[in-house]
Each structure stands twice: as structure tokens, then as C-alpha cells.
């Protein structure tokens, strides 16, 4: 079943399950809206305001009051240790909405009675509608409990079960009629059209303290796009309740479609990014406006790497040297691997600083044939360290050679007598097919190519079979 069909099936299940819910369970005070993707769960999204004391039970003394730019303009607050708010829900994900501020402390989070973590709600200024989501192992009935630690106030704005999100790699415009980006208060965020240089020629902005916009997505990196100008102020950025600092949008001259990217987010959990107007400004600025041009949900890693393109390149240059476009080395098995990866679309790291650490991986050409590369670009041990440094992010360690697929690679220690495991050679995997050379010629195997000793379409482990050759099998997560 393809992804499109899966989504339709999930939608159908959603409709049926929603229809099947008893009326008493529909405690929502905020209606659900259509979502572009519901693949993480099939039950409906339900948001419950803090004021709904039949759905949320409060332990100890809590104060309820009105607060501007809270989700429903109210909050429940407490600063006494041990006081708690508890909410039961059906689903697989629960989002706790709260405010961060200078007088806020921390809260212990429990799911189904199990302590999960302690979160801090402190921020130097007020940030409303901060959302933090936790996933449960299974769909079903669950309970979240927020317990006040007592080192400052903690508030409850709302809880949302099965929060809606987007996960398609795309640009999400400020003017999106689907209101994927939510503005608070919506009417106060000025809608500008015909803005030359802005994405879709639109912007929205506000200059009032604590006004905010937020966006919920699944993906491991997000880019906030904005304009800079001489009347711009400072925005506070929060992702999942983590203070990501400030973005000063002031510049002497007008600059459109700039962006800041936040990376390293967990892949399979909804994230909430908040942009809050701080009402602070650069001394040179004439106003405090914060704007949004759009969000870019960066391409999911799985869509970046074009394995066919990578392998086509590897085959084309299996016995040649692309000296015009890449650095040249005498022993070039890793350089050949690097060329394959870059041709497949793996982004370089550190090309701007050209640092030579295992965290970086880059090459550059001043002119045709005049190229240089990082140590990771060319050396086996360094490239293995690079893969280890990005294990779980770019690269995944695999158990066997046959766990690899085209466009992957592996290293081997071809010297079992030097007293250490020291990788000395690299091969790239080009897929399954008939062996072209070596002992297994004509047989159907997983195939590999390599440079230094040029090989094309050999059985992947020919000459290095057996336990005497330690290997590191790296699969690209892309």
C-alpha cells in the first residue's frame, strides 16, 4: 500500500472512530480542524482548556485568571510544591500548553503514573502557548499529570491529545488559508500583501508584547523565514518549551526572505515552534515589529539522498578519476565514496569554515582540477569517525553487509596483524546484480565498487570474507 492510500485509510479510520466516540468524551472546547497528515495516530485531536475542571482535575490550590494571548485567554496557576493538574485522554500523543515567564519555575511530568521528566517554564520574558508533546507507546486511555515543583509558578493553559501537524517538506506561507500557522490574536497580526521579495509576496507582523504565532510540524529541522528592516524588533524563539534564544530582525536596509534553521529535532514527534513578540528592539531600530514570511519544513532526510543518482555516478567513475571536479589523491577509496555521496545529494558540513575535524565533511574547487577536501573526504579512519559522529542522524550502523542497500558503504580492516582495529579501505554498495569480476563472476550478489584497487560490481565482500576482516557497515538514513 502506498503512502497516499495509507493516508486515505487513516482518514477513514479517523472519521469512523470519531463518529464512534461517546458524546461524553467530546470534551473539546476547541474544534478539531482538518490536518494534512495524521499518520502518527488515528484518534481525533481534542483540546481541553484549563478552565474545564470537569476534564482536568487540580490537586491543591490553583488560581484561575484571565491572561491575554493564552489559548482561551485564561490560565490556572500554582506555585506550591506538590500541587498538580491531571488530565485523562484517549490517543497516542499529549501536548501540554503553558506559559513561560520570568516568574515561572519547573514541573514534573508523569504519564500513566510514571515520572517522565522535569521541565522548566522559566524564560526572561512572557511566552504564551508554549507546547510540549509526549508520545505514548500505544494508542489508548492515558493520563498526564503536571506537578508543581515549587521553585516558581507553573500554569496550565490547555491540553491537546493527538495534536495535528504537518510533515510534508514544503514552504508554509504566512498567508496559508488553512491556518496551519496560528496567530494570537489573529486580528492583531497585520496581513501585508504585494510585498516584493517576500515568499508569495505576503508577510504578517505584530509589534505587541506577548503576541505570538506558532506552527506544529513533524521533522527534524525547521526554518523560520522573515524580513529584516529598520523598524523591526526582537523575536523570542521557543521550540517544545526549549528557549532557542532571540532573533534580532533589525537591519539598516530592507532584507527579504532571510531564515534561521533549527536542527536536531526528534524525527517522529510533533514539535511546536513559537515566535513571540518581545517588545524589545535593537537601539538603532525605530519599532518592535516581528514578522513572518513563511516556515520551511526542510525536506525529510529520507527524500534528500538520490541513491540511483549516487550509484550511477559510482558506476560511471568506477575505473576513472573525475579530476576536474573533485580533489585527487593517490589512495582514493574514500574520496570516491565521498564523490558518490555528494552526487547523491548529501549536504556538506563545514564548507564555509573549512575546518578539518571529524564533524566536517566538505570539498571545494577553486577552478577545474584545483580542488581540496576535508580529511574526512579522503581518509578512511576520519570518515569512519565522521559517520560515528553523525550516527543516528546521517548514518546508521548496520549488522551485516547484506543489510546495506545501494548508495551505502562500508569500511574494513584489511590488516589483521597490526595490533589494532584500524580501517584501511572503503567500498561502496551499488545494489544487487550479477557479479562482473572476481571469484563470483556471473553470480547474483550484493555488489560493491571501490577505488584504490579499482573494482566494479564485485561481490560486496570478495577477498574480505570471514571474521578476519572487521568491518563497519554504514547505511545512510537519508
Amino acid at each position, binding site marked *: 500500500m502506498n503512502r497516499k492510500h495509507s493516508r486515505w485509510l487513516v482518514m477513514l479510520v479517523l472519521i469512523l472512530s470519531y463518529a464512534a466516540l461517546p458524546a461524553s468524551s467530546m470534551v473539546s472546547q476547541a474544534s478539531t480542524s482538518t490536518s494534512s497528515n495524521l499518520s502518527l495516530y488515528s484518534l481525533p485531536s481534542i483540546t481541553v482548556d484549563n478552565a474545564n475542571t470537569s476534564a482536568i482535575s487540580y490537586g491543591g490550590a490553583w488560581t484561575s485568571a484571565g491572561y491575554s494571548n493564552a489559548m482561551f485567554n485564561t490560565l490556572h496557576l500554582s506555585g506550591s510544591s506538590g500541587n498538580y493538574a491531571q488530565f485523562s485522554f484517549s490517543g497516542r500523543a499529549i501536548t501540554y500548553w503553558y506559559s513561560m515567564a520570568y516568574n515561572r519555575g519547573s514541573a514534573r511530568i508523569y504519564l500513566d503514573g510514571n515520572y517522565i521528566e522535569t521541565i522548566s517554564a522559566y524564560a526572561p520574558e512572557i511566552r504564551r502557548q508554549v507546547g510540549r508533546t509526549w508520545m505514548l507507546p500505544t494508542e489508548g486511555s492515558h493520563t498526564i499529570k503536571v506537578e508543581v515543583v515549587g521553585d516558581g509558578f507553573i500554569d496550565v493553559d490547555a491540553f491537546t491529545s493527538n495534536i495535528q501537524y504537518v510533515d510534508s517538506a514544503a514552504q508554509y506561507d504566512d498567508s496559508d488559508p488553512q491556518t496551519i500557522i496560528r496567530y494570537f490574536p489573529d486580528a492583531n497580526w497585520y496581513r501585508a500583501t504585494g510585498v516584493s521579495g517576500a515568499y508569495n509576496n505576503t508577510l504578517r507582523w505584530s509589534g505587541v508584547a506577548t503576541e505570538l504565532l506558532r506552527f506544529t510540524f513533524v521533522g527534524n529541522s525547521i526554518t523560520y523565514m522573515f524580513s529584516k528592516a529598520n523598524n523591526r524588533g526582537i523575536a523570542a524563539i521557543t521550540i517544545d518549551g526549549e528557549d532557542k534564544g532571540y532573533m534580532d530582525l533589525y537591519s539598516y536596509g530592507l532584507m527579504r526572505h532571510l531564515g534561521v534553521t533549527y536542527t536536531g529535532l526528534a524525527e517522529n514527534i510533533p514539535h511546536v515552534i513559537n515566535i513571540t513578540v518581545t517588545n524589545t528592539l535593537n537601539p538603532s531600530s525605530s519599532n518592535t515589529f516581528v514578522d513572518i514570511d513563511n516556515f520551511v519544513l526542510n525536506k525529510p532526510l529520507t527524500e534528500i539522498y538520490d541513491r540511483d543518482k549516487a550509484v550511477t555516478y559510482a558506476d560511471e567513475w568506477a575505473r576513472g578519476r573525475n579530476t576536474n571536479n573533485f580533489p585527487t589523491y593517490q589512495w582514493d577509496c574514500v574520496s570516491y565514496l565521498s564523490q558518490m555521496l555528494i552526487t547523491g545529494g548529501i549536504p556538506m558540513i563545514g564548507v564555509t569554515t573549512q575546518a578539518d575535524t571529524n564533524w566536517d565533511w566538505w570539498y571545494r574547487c577553486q577552478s577545474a582540477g584545483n580542488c581540496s577536501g576535508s580529511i574526512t573526504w579522503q581518509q578512511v579512519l576520519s570518515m569512519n569517525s565522521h559517520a560515528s559522529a553523525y550516527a*543516528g542522524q546521517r548514518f546508521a*550502523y548496520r549488522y551485516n553487509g547484506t543489510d546495506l542497500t545501494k548508495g551505502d558503504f562500508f569500511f574494513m580492516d*584489511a590488516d589483521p596483524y597490526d595490533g589494532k*582495529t584500524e*580501517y584501511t579501505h572503503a567500498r561502496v554498495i551499488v545494489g544487487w546484480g550479477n557479479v562482473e569480476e572476481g571469484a563470483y563472476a556471473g553470480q547474483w550478489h550484493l555488489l560493491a565498487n571501490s577505488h584504490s584497487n579499482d573494482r566494479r560490481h564485485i561481490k560486496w565482500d570478495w577477498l*574480505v570474507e*570471514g*571474521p578476519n576482516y572487521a*568491518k563497519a557497515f554504514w547505511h545512510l538514513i537519508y
Partner: protein
Amino acid sequence: MKNKILFGTLVGTGIILLLLVVANKSSVDAGMSYRGSGLPEEEKKIEKVIENWYEIQTTARAGGGDVSRYPEVLVDTGDYPIDEEQRALIEEVYGKERARTAGFLTMMQVQDMLVGQGSEMLKDAIKKAREENRELTKKDLDELQAKNHGQILGIVDKSTHKTELAFEAIEIANGKTTARVYDGGGLREFILVQIDGQWFISSGKTLRIDV
């Protein structure tokens, strides 16, 4: 008469050439030029020791690093140079006294024990991560490497692949042998010493990698 002399000369030359070929034929038909020692019985013993070594090392690496059989074929002498880094590693694993007298036997024991157990730890960690629906991270790998005395981790498979050996040269002199062996992955050179009539490998190194 001339023809008879010519015929006799040709036959005689042929016989001499045949005798020369037979005399030079080694006990190992490696399919390549072979330089023997002229002591075929000793060569057989030496070949057997090296073949045993390959079998023992393969079994140890695949078996999680059980290197207890290494003394059957390896020995510590001064033939295998140990650098400071290696000596520090040996000391960490086997203690100071063993590090002081370490040679090929001890170095291979340390190396292959760490390779074998490192591989098992790595496989377990991959399996566990998979059960947790995640991939290994740098933190995981760093922790495993620290547990493995800082040695880089690698996977060794448990296949029963038997390495085909082709002996290129066996030179014996004064109770010591230098043997060159091609094992598919590369050309290796072993030094063997005779102790109480039995050959032991006292050094090994890679001369050329062909992978």
C-alpha cells in the same frame, strides 16, 4: 652418424631439463613463483602451523574473542615490535608484567579479544537499539568504545569461510623461518621460530593489501 649424435644430444638435453624441473618443483603448487627452502618436510610443518593459525584466529574472532588457543601456534619473542601505544593497551588488559615481555602472541591475543568482544557488544547494541525503534548514536558508540579499551569497533561475521592460502616463499635458516603467504586479501609475512622441535609464529605483518 651425425644424425645419431644430434638425436643423442637432443635427448640428453631434454633429460637434463626434465631433471632440473623436477628438482625445482616445490611441495606447494601455488600457481605462482615459489621460493622454497629445500627442506620440504619442514616446509610442510610450517605451512601446517600457518594454516592452523588462520583457523584459530578466525574461530577466536568469530567466537567473541576467545583467544585461549593462541599459544598453540604463536609465541612472544622480540621479532614483533611493540610500540608504546600497544604496550599501554596490553598493560591495560593483561597487566604490567605481560606488557613487558609482550610479542606477537600477546598482541594478537589483545587485539583479537577486543575485536571479538567488541563485535559482540556492537551487535548487541544494534539489536537493542532496533528493539527500541532507534538507531545507535555517537553516545552509544563512544560508550561501547570506552568499554572496549578505546579500540574502534567493528563487526566480524561468524561465517565459516575458509581462507585459501598460497605460499609464495619459505626460507629457513638457523632455526628461524620467514614465510610469505598470499591469502586473497593481501600478502603477509610471518616469522616462525623453532622451540623444542615445534614451529611457532613469532611475528606477522602485511606486506601488501589487495582488497
